[in-house]
């Protein structure tokens, strides 16, 4: 769409570019001319008239050939300015150019306000160098150079007329040019005196518009920079971890691709589909971010044809793959089952210890365990690192109770039970001594369906448990190893104490073996008596 002489025309994209470029070039011929606006209005009105002649009931879009016809009638931009050859100044040597050079801001090549572009023209650099330096300075100077930029922006005028633009780029100094310039300025001067009053008010509103456009530029370039940064960092870190994964999927000692595909998914290859879908979605989004980031950052209007919809299609395909494998996998986990074995102990104290870890490491603590810790045993069993946990509970019963729960998920309840039955978990009971394994095993051909082993120990009030080694391998308490714990009214009793007696009437007597002292508490009165 273009508005010419008060009439709006629908113009095809390529025709639009030509006509816009044409008008801009004509305008360049008259910049600085006191009659500039009037001349342009007349020309646009005539072009509008010629366009209207080329429209009909059936054809109301201006196409390339219409524009070519009109330009043939109106003539090339240089035909408009007989004799005033100021734009035809020949390029001359740089020593000549420098002499008449002045600093202007270049609005035609601006990123924010054209300061960098203008200064670069002055020094004869490529603007990108100064821009890069500016960005670095702003980062290093924690933003303070922005102030310098704003000052430069306010102080340096915009190159508006052709003459100023030539001066900004370095105009050749010739007698002809100087004479022309003097004439021009004398002509403009008289105009200026008449127009000073309203021109200053126009300047004011123009400055306002300039500020608005600079703010708009900052915002859109900022968003562009953020987009570009996010897109690039996701892509680079993604590629980095992919390279790492090529060596070993989740790091040394963890399950590899095939193991995960085989044990966690319904169908062989689902994991591949899930990964491919994820990569497709992430890469597409990254490309979209980088593309729109570059467009915003550098103010590029050019579109890459088909990129938008092909990215959309790729994202849809990726999401479909994710949903497909996701649903198929999640169905496998939709039901759960617990197989419970219960033991009771009549003694006052039980002894609990965890076997040494022969597959992983004894020093792995509860919080350090990772989901993908899987190792193949000699007997073709897979050992899972994580899913054994030990819990202590207080109970109103009079004797100790231990429950061993084998847990698994499945597509149906019976499948979940069947899966749980496949767990091979070793523990030994000898009188009041319990010895637990820190891991369990599954036969190699059994897929992993969130198998867990949970050992729950219920401790009656006033009874104690002697904790052996490696407890923190399967229990979240960090400091239980080698300690004696007694269940009091308010939960676990203080550490370091043994032979503790608890009474419901609020009297407590504890004897510490380490300090060889007796601690007595009756209601609110506390007495600690040391034998030494």
């Amino acid at each position, binding site marked *: 769409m273009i508005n010419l*002489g008060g009439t709006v025309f629908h113009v095809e994209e390529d025709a639009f570019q030509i006509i816009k470029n044409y008008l801009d070039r004509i305008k360049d011929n008259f910049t600085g001319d*006191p*009659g500039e606006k009037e001349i342009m209005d007349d020309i646009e*009105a005539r072009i509008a008239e010629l366009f209207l002649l080329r429209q009909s009931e059936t054809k109301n879009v201006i196409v390339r050939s219409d524009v070519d016809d009109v330009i043939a009638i109106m003539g*090339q*931009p240089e*035909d*408009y300015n007989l004799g005033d050859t100021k734009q035809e100044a020949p390029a001359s040597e740089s020593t000549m150019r420098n002499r008449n050079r002045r600093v202007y801001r270049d609005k035609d090549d601006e990123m924010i306000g054209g300061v960098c572009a203008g200064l670069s023209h002055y020094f004869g650099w490529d603007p990108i160098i100064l821009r890069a330096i500016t960005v670095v300075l702003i980062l290093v100077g924690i933003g303070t150079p922005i102030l310098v930029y704003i000052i430069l922006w306010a102080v340096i005028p915009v190159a508006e007329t052709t003459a100023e633009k030539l001066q900004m780029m370095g105009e050749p100094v010739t007698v002809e040019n100087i004479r022309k310039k003097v004439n021009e300025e004398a002509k403009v001067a008289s105009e200026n005196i008449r127009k000073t009053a309203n021109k200053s008010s126009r300047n004011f509103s123009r400055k306002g518009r300039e500020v608005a456009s600079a703010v708009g530029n900052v915002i859109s370039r900022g968003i562009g920079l953020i987009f570009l940064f996010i897109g690039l960092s996701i892509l680079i870190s993604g590629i980095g971890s992919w390279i790492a994964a090529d060596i070993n999927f989740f790091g040394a000692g963890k399950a590899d691709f095939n193991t995960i595909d085989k044990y966690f998914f319904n169908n062989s290859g689902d994991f591949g589909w899930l990964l491919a879908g994820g990569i497709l979605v992430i890469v597409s989004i990254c490309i979209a971010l980088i593309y729109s980031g570059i467009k915003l950052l550098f103010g590029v209007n050019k579109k890459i044809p088909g990129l938008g919809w092909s990215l959309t299609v790729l994202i849809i395909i990726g999401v479909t793959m994710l949903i497909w494998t996701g649903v198929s996998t999640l169905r496998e986990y939709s039901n759960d089952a617990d197989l419970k074995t219960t033991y009771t102990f009549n003694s006052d104290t039980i002894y609990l210890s965890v076997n040494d870890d022969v597959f992983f490491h004894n020093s792995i603590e509860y919080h350090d365990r990772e989901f993908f810790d899987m190792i193949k045993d000699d007997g073709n069993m897979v050992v899972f690192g994580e899913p054994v946990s030990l819990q202590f509970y207080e109970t109103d019963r009079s004797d100790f109770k231990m429950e061993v729960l084998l847990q698994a998920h499945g597509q149906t309840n019976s499948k979940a039970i069947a899966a749980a039955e496949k767990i091979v978990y070793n523990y030994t009971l000898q009188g009041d001594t319990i010895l637990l394994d820190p891991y369990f095993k599954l036969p190699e051909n059994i897929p992993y369906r969130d198998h867990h082993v949970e050992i729950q120990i219920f401790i009656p009030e006033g009874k104690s448990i002697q904790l052996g080694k490696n407890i923190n391998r399967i229990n979240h308490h960090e400091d239980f190893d080698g300690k004696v714990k007694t269940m009091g009214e308010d939960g676990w009793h203080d550490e370091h104490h043994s032979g503790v007696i608890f009474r419901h009437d609020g009297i407590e007597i504890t004897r510490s073996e380490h300090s060889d002292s007796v601690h007595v508490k009756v209601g609110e009165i506390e007495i600690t008596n040391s034998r030494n």
Partner: protein
Amino acid sequence: MDIENAKAQMRKGVLEFCILGVLSRGEAYPSDIIADLKKAKLIVVEGTLYPLLTRLKNDGLLTYRWEESTQGPPRKYYQLTRDGKKFLEELRSTWDELAHAVKQTTKAE
């Protein structure tokens, strides 16, 4: 001396003279002026005319009035001012003298 520039200046001067001449026959719209100039092969493209008209108007030689058009934007109808008529008379006599002089001096033996 730049021959292109000299030609352009000459053409420009002659064109201004001719535009004033066309308008001396009565009020006209740019397209009418162009038609006349094209017939005389003085200009080939329309674009040349608009800046000339504006400059002549700004110099006070021409004036115009708006007229609504059925075919598009309103049109400017130009006519000579009193200054314009005087200027044209001067140009005419200068031209005649010049043409005569040129004829005399460039005449082949």
